[in-house]
């Protein structure tokens, strides 16, 4: 699925960054719509997380740390999560993925997906453990598990859509950016 020639122009990178911010805000906004105020038994995938994962796995240069941390922290504040907990886990997970991004670009998609899956599962285990130990009220483990599974299943869909809509693919080994730096 990887695009043989990834786009590296500065305009493309900044457009993608703006797209990331807009997408995150739009997702937070849809979460906030007061459509269902009764407690639910179902839950959707965490799309902000999976978008960050896909984009960082494929183009770690596009979504830097200074973009990930504020977006997730804003999500913590607006979506009534314990401030800092989810965003800490998200920063650690995305950095773990970023460190492996160079290896990921040689892998077939299924392997890339499984690396992301391992990191995501670790993310949820750490989050659930810290919540249970440190937060004074309980979190529903079954809902969290459902969210993890759906988020994992969304990975290929988001990867495919990002490639189709914005041509986001892996860089080829040795490819350079507009200023001649190796990606």
């Amino acid at each position, binding site marked *: 699925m990887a695009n043989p020639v990834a786009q590296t122009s500065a305009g493309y990178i900044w457009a993608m960054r703006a797209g990331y911010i807009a997408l995150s805000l739009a997702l937070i906004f849809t979460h906030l719509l*007061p459509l269902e105020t009764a407690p639910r038994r179902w839950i959707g995938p965490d799309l902000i997380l999976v978008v960050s994962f896909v984009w960082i796995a494929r183009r770690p240069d596009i979504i830097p740390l200074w973009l990930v941390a504020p977006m997730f922290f804003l999500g913590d*504040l607006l979506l009534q*999560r314990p401030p*800092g907990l989810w965003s*800490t886990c998200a920063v650690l997970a995305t950095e773990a993925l970023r460190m492996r991004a160079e290896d990921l670009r*040689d892998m077939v998609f299924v392997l890339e997906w499984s690396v992301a899956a391992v990191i995501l599962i670790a993310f949820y285990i750490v989050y659930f453990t810290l919540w249970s130990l440190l937060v004074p009220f309980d979190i529903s483990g079954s809902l969290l598990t459902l969210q993890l599974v759906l988020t994992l299943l969304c990975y290929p869909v988001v990867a495919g859509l990002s490639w189709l809509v914005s041509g986001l693919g892996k860089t080829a080994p040795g490819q350079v950016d507009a200023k001649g730096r190796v990606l």
Partner: protein
Amino acid sequence: MAKDRSNAEDYTAPVRRLAVAIVVLCLISVFVVWRIDSPRVERFRTEITDRIVPSFDWAMSPVTATAHLISDFRSYQRIYDQNQELKRELQQMKAWKEAALQLEQENARLLDLNKVRLDPKFTHVTGVVMADSGSPFRQSVLLNVGRRDGIMDGWATMDGLGLVGRISGVGETTSRVVLLTDASSRLPITIQPSGVRAILAGDNTARPPLDLIENRDALRPGDRVFSSGDGDVFPAGILVGEVIQDQGGRLRVRLVADYERLEFVRVLRSHQIEDINNPGALIVPEIAPGAVLGPSPADARADTDGASNG
């Protein structure tokens, strides 16, 4: 595979790691501060919400309205069944109306005899629900009334039928209502007709369970649940719901407020609530042991019941 790292990367890698460490440290310290001094961080959260969410409102209201329109439209498909059902219910209601009218007259006579003045505390401000908590793990809604409308932390909210939750977090133009279904919500209640006291402990389900029940044997499914006003954080006597028993035999409460669709919420003014500034003082009062805790008769009774020092 051998990695072909460039020189530039060798320089930036330690800087990167340092940046990650600093960011993670900042986030963790926010979490730790929240854990230690949650009111302060929650106030910060309220201010941020107050800035951002109203600016989304231009887009939010139409989308919400459209979604409601669609679900209304779906309900038109069942309109015949609903009509039949309503007719049946109306028949029953007429009988009840007669009974209610007679009771109302009787009640008015009795109140007049007793010279009772109805509680003047219960004036209210009505707010519109702007947003919900945004995650299925928390149950709260954001109202479009705030400090400028005189809303204060701790006030009760109801939807016209029954209790919905309490105000927790007031911004300039918005305020958050923590619903009774939220996992952190605890409400002291009285169950009629037996008068048993208990705690309604939210657990993120639609039917919150009863906890710390005084006398379980006195309760029957169908008993009415009211707020009890114990602890002076909430006005007494507001209808909450009725007792039901789940399959596991646990007593839960079916809330009368229509949680499926909260659109307009009444915030009840109450002026006697305790001011919660210091979270520690809620658990361990800063009063010398042996002193009477508060002016309320409920507290005084609890003291004499519970200990010999009263």
